[in-house]
C-alpha cells in the first residue's frame, strides 16, 4: 500500500503496538538542553536508573547563556539561578559520559542549529528533545518532535516513547516565490491560513515545488514552526538538497556506510497516491512578506495589509482574542502594518539564525545605517560555527558598520531567559517564532518576520515591504 513519509518513519520505529492503540516507538537521537532536563536526570537517579544508550544523546546549553563576552565559560553567567542550571547540565553530562558542547566549545549553539550542523540529525531518524521546536529536524525527513520533561526521563531510561500514530496532513506550496519572500513568510502564511491549532494531531509534510526549491536552512525554518501550526512534527522528503547537506558533516556516516545510508534515505518520500487525511494548498505566488501583529502566531498579515477590526469577526472567541491582542499591542483596527514603529530588532533564534539567514540580512543592510529611533538591533548567530563562518565571510563587519550588535550564540531574545530582552511596551521586529505576551520580556511586543524584513525594518525604524524597497 502506498505510504506517506510519516507512515514509513512510524513503521520503521515501531517496537511494539499495544492492544489499546498506543505504541512503543524507538528513539534514535535525543538532544538535551539545560532547561527541561535537570528534573529528568534527577528522576533517573532517584529511581536508580541509567541512560539506556549514551551515544544516542547530545547536549548543549543554549537558553540561559549570555550572548555578550563569556570567555570564562559557565562562570560568565551572572545570574546565579541560570548559572546553576547550566552547571547542572554540565554535571549530568559529565556523570553519565554524554557528549556535550559546553559554553566555550566552538560547536555550542541552539540545540536545533547544532545537531543538523554536526550530522547528528540524519534522515530517517526519530529525534526528540525537551523542546517544542524539535520539529525543525523534520526538514531532514526525520520524525522529530518536542517532548515534556517526564518523556525526557522516559527516553533516557528506555530509549523509547509511548505514542499513538498521528494523522497525515500535506501542505503543498507550488509555484515560484516573489522576490524578497522567504521561507519564514511561507510558514507564517501557512499559520495565518490554518491557525495555531490547525495541525493539532497531525504530522505535517511540506511539499510542492516551492519547498523543493528551498535550501536545507529554509526547510528547517518551515519545519521549525510546524509547532506554531499545532503540529508536533513537520516533514520534508529527502532529495539531493538533503543528501548534499548531510554529506561530510562530522557525525555523518562515511565510506561504505554512507552508500548504504544514502540508498536507504532516498526512499524517504511519500509514495505516489499515498493517503493524506488533509491537504492544504497555497500558491507560492500568492505569498507576500508577512508580519505578525498580535499575541499568537496566527495573528499575522501580509506587510501591505491593515489591522483587522475585532468587531467584524464572526467567531466570538476569535473576536475576543483580537480585542485582547489589540489592547496588549496598543493598536487600533485599520492601522497599516507599515506604520508600526519599532524599538528593537532581533535577528536570531532556531527559526532564523543560520548562515543563510545572516547572509540574507547582511545583503539588505550593507552600506546602510540602523535608524536612530531603534534602541538596539541584535544579531545572534545560532551556533559558534555559524558565527565563525559569518566572520570569515565578513558579515559581522557589515552588521557592525550598520550599527547592529554582533553577539555570541544562544537563544537570546527569542525568550529572554538571559539578559537580552524587551522593555515594557517596546515593539520588536523579531525573526523568532513566538509572539506571546511577555515572551521577549515583560510587557514586550513581538512582531514575527523573516530576516530580510527585520533587517529592512531596522534601517527604516518601521516595517517596509522588502519587495519594493532597497
Amino acid at each position: 500500500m502506498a505510504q506517506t513519509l510519516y507512515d514509513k518513519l512510524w513503521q520503521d520505529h515501531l517496537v511494539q503496538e499495544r492492544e489499546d492503540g498506543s505504541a512503543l516507538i524507538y528513539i534514535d537521537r535525543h538532544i538535551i538542553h539545560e532547561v527541561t532536563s535537570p528534573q529528568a536526570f534527577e528522576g533517573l537517579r532517584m529511581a536508580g536508573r541509567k541512560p539506556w544508550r549514551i551515544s544516542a544523546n547530545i547536549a548543549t546549553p543554549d537558553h540561559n547563556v549570555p550572548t555578550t563576552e563569556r570567555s570564562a565559560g559557565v562562570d560568565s553567567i551572572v545570574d546565579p539561578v541560570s548559572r546553576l542550571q547550566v552547571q547542572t547540565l554540565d554535571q549530568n553530562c559529565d556523570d553519565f559520559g554524554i557528549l556535550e558542547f559546553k559554553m566555550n566549545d566552538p560547536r555550542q549553539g541552539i540545540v536545533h542549529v547544532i545537531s543538523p550542523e554536526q550530522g547528528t540529525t540524519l534522515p530517517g531518524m526519530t529525534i526528540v528533545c525537551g523542546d517544542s521546536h524539535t520539529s525543525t529536524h523534520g526538514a531532514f525527513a526525520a520524525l522529530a518532535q518536542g517532548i515534556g520533561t517526564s518523556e525526557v526521563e522516559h527516553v533516557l531510561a528506555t530509549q523509547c516513547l509511548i505514542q499513538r500514530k498521528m494523522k497525515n496532513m500535506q501542505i503543498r506550496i507550488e509555484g515560484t516565490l516573489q522576490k524578497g519572500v522567504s521561507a519564514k513568510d511561507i510558514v507564517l502564511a501557512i499559520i495565518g491560513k490554518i491557525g495555531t491549532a490547525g495541525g493539532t494531531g497531525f504530522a505535517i509534510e511540506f511539499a510542492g515545488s516551492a519547498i523543493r526549491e528551498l535550501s536545507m536552512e529554509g526547510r528547517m525554518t518551515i519545519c521549525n514552526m510546524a509547532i506554531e501550526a499545532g503540529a508536533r512534527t513537520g516533514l520534508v522528503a529527502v532529495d539531493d538538497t538533503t543528501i548534499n547537506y548531510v554529506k561530510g558533516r562530522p557525525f555523518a556516516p562515511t565510506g561504505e556506510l554512507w552508500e548504504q545510508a544514502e540508498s536507504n534515505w532516498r526512499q524517504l518520500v511519500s509514495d505516489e497516491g499515498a493517503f493524506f487525511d488533509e491537504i492544504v494548498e497555497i500558491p507560492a505566488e500568492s505569498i507576500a512578506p508577512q508580519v505578525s501583529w498580535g499575541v499568537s502566531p496566527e495573528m499575522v498579515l501580509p506587510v501591505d495589509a491593515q489591522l483587522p477590526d475585532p468587531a467584524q469577526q464572526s467567531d466570538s472567541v476569535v473576536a475576543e482574542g483580537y480585542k485582547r491582542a489589540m489592547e496588549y499591542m496598543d493598536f487600533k483596527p485599520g492601522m497599516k502594518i507599515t506604520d508600526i514603529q519599532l524599538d528593537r530588532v532581533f535577528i536570531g533564534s532556531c527559526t532564523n539564525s543560520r548562515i543563510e539567514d545572516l547572509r540574507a540580512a547582511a545583503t539588505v543592510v550593507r552600506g546602510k545605517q540602523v535608524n536612530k529611533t531603534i534602541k538596539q538591533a541584535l544579531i545572534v548567530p545560532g551556533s559558534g560555527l555559524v558565527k565563525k563562518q559569518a566572520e570569515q565571510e565578513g558579515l559581522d563587519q557589515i552588521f557592525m558598520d550598520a550599527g547592529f550588535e554582533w553577539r555570541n550564540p544562544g537563544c537570546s531574545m527569542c525568550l529572554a531567559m538571559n539578559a537580552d530582552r524587551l522593555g515594557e511596551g517596546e515593539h520588536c521586529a523579531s525573526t523568532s517564532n513566538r509572539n506571546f505576551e511577555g515572551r521577549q520580556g515583560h510587557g514586550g511586543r513581538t512582531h514575527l518576520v523573516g530576516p530580510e524584513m527585520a533587517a529592512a525594518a531596522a534601517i527604516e525604524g518601521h516595517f517596509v515591504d522588502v519587495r519594493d524597497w532597497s
Partner: protein
Amino acid sequence: MKKFKNLKGLVAPMDQSNVDTDQIIPKQFLKSIKRSGFGPNLFDAWRYLDEGEPGMDNSTRPLNPDFVLNKAEFKGVSILLARRNFGCGSSREHAPWALEDFGFRALIAPSYADIFYNNCFKNGILPVILDENIVDRLFSEQSQTVGYSLEIDLENQIVKTPAGEQLPFEVDEFRKHCLLNGLDDIGLTLQDESAIKEYEQQRIKEKSWLFTEMKA
C-alpha cells in the same frame, strides 16, 4: 504520581482561547532545577501587577484584582474551565507542574495543544475534552452560579453538572489506566525491556550508521 479517580471541585473560568504555556508559567521561573514550587507563579504576568522574578516573596507582591484566580470565590479551586487550544506553545512541563502545585487536578476545554495535553497525564492532571457548545454552556452556567462545582468521574468518563446532567468524555485507555492507578510509565515500559533490546539489535544490524559512538 497521584492517583485520579473521582473529583468534585470548584470551577474557575479562563475565558480566552490559545492560552499558551508562556502565560501559564513565564520563562524566568524555568531556571529552577526542581519540579515543585511553581504554584505561586502560575499565570504570573496576569496574576501580579509587578514583574515576577524567581526568589521573590510572592506573598508581598501586588495582586491584579481583576484576574480570575485572585478572586476570593475561587479559593480552593481544582477545575479550570478553558477555551480552545489551551496550553499551546512551549513544551515546558513546568506548566502542568504549576497548575498542579496551585491545586488544579482537572481541566475542561474543547481542545488542547498536543504536548501540553500529554504532559498533564504525566502529572496526575486530567484534561477533559468536551464539545465547544457544551463548554460554552458550562461557561454560562458558571457565570450565573457562585461556588459552581463539577464532578468528574474518570472511571466512567463522565462530567456531572450541579443540575444532574451527565456529560460523557473520551480518554485514551492507556492514559486512563495510568492515571487511575497513579502509575509511572517508565516502569511499565521497562517490563518490555526484551522487546526493546531485540528491536535495537536488529536495527544495529540493518542501519549501523545510526549507532556512531558519541561520547564525551
